[in-house]
């Protein structure tokens, strides 16, 4: 009996142990599935994080690129502004320089013109004086020659010489008559 009891007890113990073992095995199997699931989940999550990070990085890169384009435009605009300003300043300065140069040139031209005018005037006065002297000399010669030629011509036409005194008398006579006639 005792043996039976013992056998029964032992059988019971073995049965408990078997059940426990099986439960343990089952639990162990269950735990292993859970772990794989967790790992898979973690992998998926990490992939998702990575994907998001990648997307974010790409977004940042895109934004950085856009910002860079904007800055480039702004810089170019600023540069153009600087060039325009410098150009204007240079232009103004050049204009001032040209004006100054023109003014000094004009002043110089006036001086030269005055000097030339003086010179021409002096030369002109000297030439006029020479011409005047020459004219007087020529006229006195011509006077003498013309009187002779006229004397001859008149002599040929009227057959007698009209002296200068007679010319004068006739001219004065004409003037007197003109005065009497209220022409003069």
């Amino acid at each position: 009996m005792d043996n039976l009891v013992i056998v029964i007890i032992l059988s019971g113990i073995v049965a408990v142990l078997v059940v426990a073992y099986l439960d343990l095995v089952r639990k162990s199997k269950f735990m292993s599935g859970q772990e794989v699931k967790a790992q898979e989940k973690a992998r998926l999550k990490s992939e998702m994080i990575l994907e998001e990070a990648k997307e974010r990085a790409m977004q940042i890169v895109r934004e950085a690129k856009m910002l860079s384009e904007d800055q480039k435009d702004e810089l170019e605009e600023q540069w153009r502004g600087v060039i325009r300003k410098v150009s204007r300043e240079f232009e103004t300065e050049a204009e001032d320089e040209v004006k100054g140069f023109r003014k000094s040139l004009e002043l110089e031209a006036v001086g030269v013109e005055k000097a030339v005018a003086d010179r021409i005037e002096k030369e002109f006065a000297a030439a006029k004086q020479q011409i005047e002297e020459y004219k007087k000399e020529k006229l006195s010669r011509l006077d003498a020659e013309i009187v002779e030629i006229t004397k001859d011509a008149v002599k040929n036409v009227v057959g007698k010489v009209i002296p200068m005194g007679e010319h004068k008398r006739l001219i004065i006579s004409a003037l007197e008559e003109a005065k009497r006639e209220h022409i003069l």
Partner: protein
Amino acid sequence: MNIYSEIIKKIGTQETAENINEAVDILCNDMYRLNKVDDKLISKLPQDDALHEAMNELELVKTEKTEWLLGLKKAIKEMRILILDVAVRLDLKTREDVIEWIKRNVGEDVVTRFQTNPEILAGAKIIFEGRYYEKKV
């Protein structure tokens, strides 16, 4: 009495009047530029009684010499012209006598333009202020 009358009475011919006008132009130019008359220039101007008189009078003018010169130019421009066509070129003495007669009998402000005219053998053709008279052979 005109302030230029002493000069005007010495201007006998139109040629003299033109010479004085030219001289006045030169002197005016001198006055504008230098505000004085260049003595060397005066000595180079044609020697003429009327111009000589003008220069003497100009020397007496203390201020506004340019105005005085322009006044003289105007007075000369206003002189009346008598055109006298004659047979021959008259000698200086005869011309002076004719001018003297004209100044005395017609007016001191009259200048004479002598012209020789081959159509006239003796005597003269006279043109004055649009009127005409001739007595010729």
